[in-house]
C-alpha cells in the first residue's frame, strides 16, 4: 500500500479497506476463504461428551507496544488463556480491530505479525476477523477484540465450583510484572525499569498441569491482579483462601514500583499468570509439571483453601499478622499518602 497512515477511507467498506485488510491482516493470518465466516471442523469437537468453550475479550492498552509484548500479543494470549484455564484446548481465534484514524500502518503490521507468531506458538489459528476505523479522538491507536473457541475433552470438568477446603493454591510465577511494566512504559510517571510484561500463552501449561494430577480450578490473573482472581474464586466456590506473604513471588523492581507509587502488587495486572487450585496431594506433581515449561518455571504454592468465611481472602503477613485481601475497589491509583 502507498498509504502510511490510516484514514477514514480505510474504514469505508470499499477498496481502500480491502487493500488495508489484505496488506496488513489476511496476508499474515491467511484465512482459508474470503467468506466473512470461517467454516471449521475438528474431530475433537465431535467426540461424544466433548464441550465447546467460547470466550471473548477486548484489549485496550497504552502504550500499544511495551517491553515484552504489544496489544496483539495480549489479545492472543488473553483469549487463549481464558480458554485454557477452563480446561479447554484452544483451537480458533477471531480478531476484530478498531483502528483510530491516523494510526500508523507499520504499527498495525507489527501487531498483526506478533499475533500470527503468538497464535502459531500457542497452536491456535486466527480464522476470521474484522476492521473498523474510527475518527481521531474516538479511539486510541487500535483496540483488539479476540474471541476464542476451544474444546473441553470429555471428562474434563474444572471450575470454581470444584474448589475444596484444603486445596493448595499455586501461581506459575512472579506477580505484577505486566502491570508494573505498563505503568512505567506509559511514561507519565517518568519511571524507568528493566521489567518486561509477563504476557504469555498458558495453553500448554494448563495441559501439562491437567495431565499431571487432578486439579480443581484455574483462573488467569489479569486486571485486578491476583487479589481479584482469588476473591472471585473464593466467592464463587463459597470458601476462604489464605495466602502467605512470604511465599508470594515478586520481583524487586515490581516491589519498587509499588513502593514508589503506594500500590499493592496483589492488585497489579498480569497477562501470563494463573492461579490454580488442586488437592494438596496433587501439588507436588502439578508443580513439577508446570516447572518443566518456561511459563511455569516460577510455579509455587502460595496458600491454601479454608472452609470459610465464604468468599474471604486473607494473607498471613511476614511476621504472623493477618490481613484481609479484599477485591480491588475501583482502580488502583498512585498515592502519596
Amino acid at each position, binding site marked *: 500500500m502507498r498509504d502510511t497512515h490510516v484514514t477514514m477511507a480505510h474504514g469505508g467498506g470499499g477498496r481502500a479497506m480491502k487493500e488495508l485488510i489484505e496488506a496488513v491482516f489476511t496476508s499474515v493470518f491467511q484465512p482459508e476463504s474470503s467468506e466473512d465466516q470461517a467454516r471449521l471442523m475438528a474431530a475433537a469437537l465431535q467426540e461424544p461428551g466433548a464441550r465447546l468453550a467460547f470466550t471473548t475479550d477486548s484489549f485496550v492498552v497504552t502504550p500499544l507496544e511495551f517491553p515484552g509484548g504489544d496489544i496483539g500479543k495480549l489479545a492472543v494470549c488473553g483469549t487463549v488463556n481464558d480458554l485454557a484455564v477452563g480446561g479447554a484446548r484452544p483451537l480458533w481465534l477471531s480478531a476484530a480491530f478498531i483502528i483510530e484514524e491516523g494510526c500508523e500502518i507499520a504499527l498495525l503490521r507489527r501487531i498483526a505479525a506478533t499475533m500470527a507468531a503468538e497464535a502459531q506458538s500457542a497452536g491456535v489459528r486466527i480464522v476470521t476477523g474484522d476492521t473498523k476505523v474510527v475518527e481521531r479522538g474516538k479511539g486510541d491507536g487500535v483496540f483488539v477484540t479476540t474471541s476464542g473457541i476451544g474444546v473441553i475433552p470429555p471428562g474434563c470438568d474444572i471450575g470454581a465450583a470444584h474448589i475444596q477446603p484444603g486445596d493448595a493454591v499455586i501461581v506459575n510465577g512472579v506477580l505484577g510484572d505486566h502491570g508494573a511494566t505498563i505503568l*512505567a512504559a506509559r511514561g507519565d*510517571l*517518568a*519511571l*524507568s*525499569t*528493566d*521489567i518486561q510484561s509477563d504476557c504469555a500463552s498458558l495453553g500448554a501449561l494448563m495441559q501439562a498441569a491437567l495431565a499431571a494430577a487432578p486439579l480443581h480450578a484455574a483462573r488467569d490473573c489479569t486486571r485486578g491482579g491476583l487479589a481479584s482472581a482469588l476473591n472471585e474464586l473464593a466467592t464463587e466456590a463459597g470458601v476462604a483462601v489464605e495466602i502467605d506473604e512470604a511465599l508470594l513471588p515478586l520481583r*524487586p*523492581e515490581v*516491589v*519498587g*514500583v509499588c*513502593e*514508589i507509587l*503506594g500500590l499493592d502488587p496483589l492488585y497489579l495486572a498480569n497477562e501470563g499468570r494463573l492461579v490454580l487450585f488442586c488437592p494438596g496431594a496433587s501439588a507436588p506433581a502439578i508443580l513439577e509439571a508446570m516447572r518443566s515449561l518456561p511459563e511455569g518455571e516460577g510455579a509455587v504454592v502460595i496458600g491454601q483453601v479454608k472452609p470459610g468465611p465464604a468468599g474471604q481472602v486473607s494473607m498471613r503477613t511476614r511476621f504472623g499478622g493477618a490481613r484481609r485481601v479484599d477485591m480491588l475497589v475501583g482502580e488502583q491509583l498512585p*498515592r*502519596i*499518602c
Partner: protein
Amino acid sequence: MCLGIPGRIIAWVDKASLMAMAEVSGVRRAVNVACVAGEDPIGKWALIHVGFAMALIDEDEAARTLEALRDLGEAQEAVEQMRAADLALEAAP
C-alpha cells in the same frame, strides 16, 4: 500520610536544576534534590517523596536502631526463656 521511600541517588540528571536520578529497587526516576544538596548527594540514600529527595538517610543511625532492636531481641529471648523456666518450675509438682 506522606508516603516516603528510601532510594539511592545514583547520578545527576541536570545539576543546574538540581535534578538527579534516584533508584528504588531497580526502578529509576528523576527527582529534585534541592533539599539534600547541601552535601553532594550522589551515591547517598535519601527519603523520596512526590519526586523530591526530602532527607538523606543517616546510615549510622539506621544501623544503631537495628542494633538496638537486635539487642532487645536477645534480651527478650532471655526473658522468655527465664519465663518458660519459671512456668516449668511452677508446673512441676
